[in-house]
């Protein structure tokens, strides 16, 4: 068994609370909601008209990207990723010029639907209208649409759709020439990206990994797609309090967007250079339900196994865990099943184990959710404070744990666990310990 230990030495984020870890921390512990009505496109005929958007338009975001030329190939998610990575690397004090660049890697979780942002969606709409043939009663000749698309779309636009562009931009900016990987497993993407980065450092194939995730689906196809699947809250009338995981009146998740990037580093290397340690990654596991694409299997076998295997990896008993940052989407099924799974794993400890869903505040960041929530765990650990589940009003008998309702709470935190589950039956679990 490897004795290499993996610590977190840098943190960066772009969340619905704004750019920077400082803003994230303050709002997280004050229990703020980032919910707002969607204004970037017309949602007036859609069932969900609110989300937790990053409060910056494209021009403001663009001004924060150092390599201005790279903006041409960047989706909104890529901008989030690069801005968060900049912050994380600066925060770590890491000097890339002092290390073997082939021992520095990048591991990112993302969705890869950046192509379909608001601008491109509007452009496609215009191209279709331009392709209507007035001579034959406004009939649509689809071959003309595709010809127009080719001739009138900037040739660099398709690069925004490649999921690995986020990691590639980060690698170029940091001269990271080691393993550069992208994981696209829906809502577990970035938890797995961090978990795999941890494994690579532990296994000795890398010394430092820049890892996390970014996503942005608050665009027409994202809202239409999740609406079609019926998984988002439609409580537009109460949109400020609609994201209410584990509450009896929950009716789906609030969509969020953003990024969190962490610098993971081998402990001895960090000690030698005098880096600051925010926490230690000590356990990780991922499993697949191998059952149905979106239904939970009987007895939640996939998420139960992920938590148990991560505890085994961390060489811990369930009794050692002090807090769980739940996947806690706010759908009827997830919260009930996750509660059941936590009770299965933690048994007699479960009633006294604090479990909260930060999605109540920042929404569901999809492929970025795992990384942002793991960053929330790091902040919980450093501040010895439990982030709350806000908008919690009416208990549900199927959800009967301590969800840290509505207000942050001081706690002694030595070990925390973060759950991420995703479509396709994906499950990932990360375990963090207080800095050694």
């Amino acid at each position, binding site marked *: 068994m490897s004795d290499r230990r993996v610590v977190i030495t840098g943190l960066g984020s772009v969340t619905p609370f704004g750019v920077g870890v400082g803003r994230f921390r303050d709002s997280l512990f004050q229990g703020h909601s980032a919910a707002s009505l969607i204004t970037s496109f017309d949602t007036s005929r859609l069932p969900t008209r609110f989300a937790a958007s990053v409060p910056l338009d494209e021009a403001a975001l663009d001004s924060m990207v150092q390599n201005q030329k790279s903006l041409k190939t960047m989706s909104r998610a890529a901008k989030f990723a690069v801005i968060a990575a900049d912050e994380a690397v600066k925060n770590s004090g890491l000097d890339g010029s002092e290390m073997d660049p082939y021992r520095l890697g990048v591991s990112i979780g993302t969705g890869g639907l950046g192509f379909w942002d608001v601008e491109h969606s509007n452009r496609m709409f215009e191209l279709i209208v331009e392709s209507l043939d007035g001579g034959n009663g406004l009939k649509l000749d689809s071959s003309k649409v595709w010809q127009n698309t080719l001739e009138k779309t900037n*040739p660099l636009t398709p690069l925004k759709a490649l999921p690995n562009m986020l990691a590639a931009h980060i690698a170029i900016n940091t001269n990271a020439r080691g393993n550069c990987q992208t994981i696209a497993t829906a809502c577990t993407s970035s938890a797995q990206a961090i978990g795999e980065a941890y494994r690579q450092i532990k296994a000795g194939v890398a010394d430092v990994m820049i890892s996390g995730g970014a996503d942005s689906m608050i665009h027409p196809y994202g809202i239409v797609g999740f609406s079609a699947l019926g998984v988002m809250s439609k409580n537009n009338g109460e949109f400020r309090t609609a994201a209410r995981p584990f509450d009896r009146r929950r009716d789906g998740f609030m969509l969020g967007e953003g990024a969190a990037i962490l610098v993971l580093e081998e402990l001895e290397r960090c000690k030698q250079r005098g880096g600051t340690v925010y926490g230690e990654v000590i356990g990780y596991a991922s499993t697949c339900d191998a059952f149905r694409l979106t239904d939970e299997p009987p007895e939640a076998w996939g998420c139960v196994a992920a938590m148990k295997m991560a505890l085994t990896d961390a060489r811990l008993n369930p009794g050692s865990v002090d807090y769980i940052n739940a996947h806690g989407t706010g759908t009827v099924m997830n919260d009930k099943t996750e509660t059941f799974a936590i009770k299965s794993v933690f048994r007699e400890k479960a009633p006294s184990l604090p479990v909260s869903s930060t999605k109540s505040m920042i929404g569901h960041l999809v492929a970025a959710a795992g990384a942002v929530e793991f960053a929330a765990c790091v902040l919980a650990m450093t501040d010895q404070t439990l982030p709350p589940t806000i908008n919690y009003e009416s208990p549900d008998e199927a959800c009967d744990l301590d969800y840290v309702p509505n207000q942050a709470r001081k706690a002694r935190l030595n070990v925390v666990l973060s759950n991420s589950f995703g479509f396709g039956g994906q499950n990932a679990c990360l375990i963090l310990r207080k800095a050694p």
Partner: protein
Amino acid sequence: MENLLSEEEIFAKLSVILQEALRIGTTKIRPEARVFDDLGAESLDLLDIRFRVDESFGVKTSDEDLIRSLGEGLTAEDIQEKLTVRSLVLYIQNCLQEKSQIL
């Protein structure tokens, strides 16, 4: 009329395109500047620049014609060394002349 543009006028329009495509200041854009080594372009940027030239000048550029305009027996790799702002201006001028002959 686009086909009556002088070399200076083409340079002025191209300069705006290069500023936008390469996110660089106007002072760097001199006729002798090499588009790759001096102005920081990469292969993808050339696609972007050509797309913007086509839109702005109403022409249809191609990689093959551009390479041919730079000299005999050159390959795509030679573009990185040979392509200057001035050679791009001359190529655009040539495209405009061909267009006016067709019309």
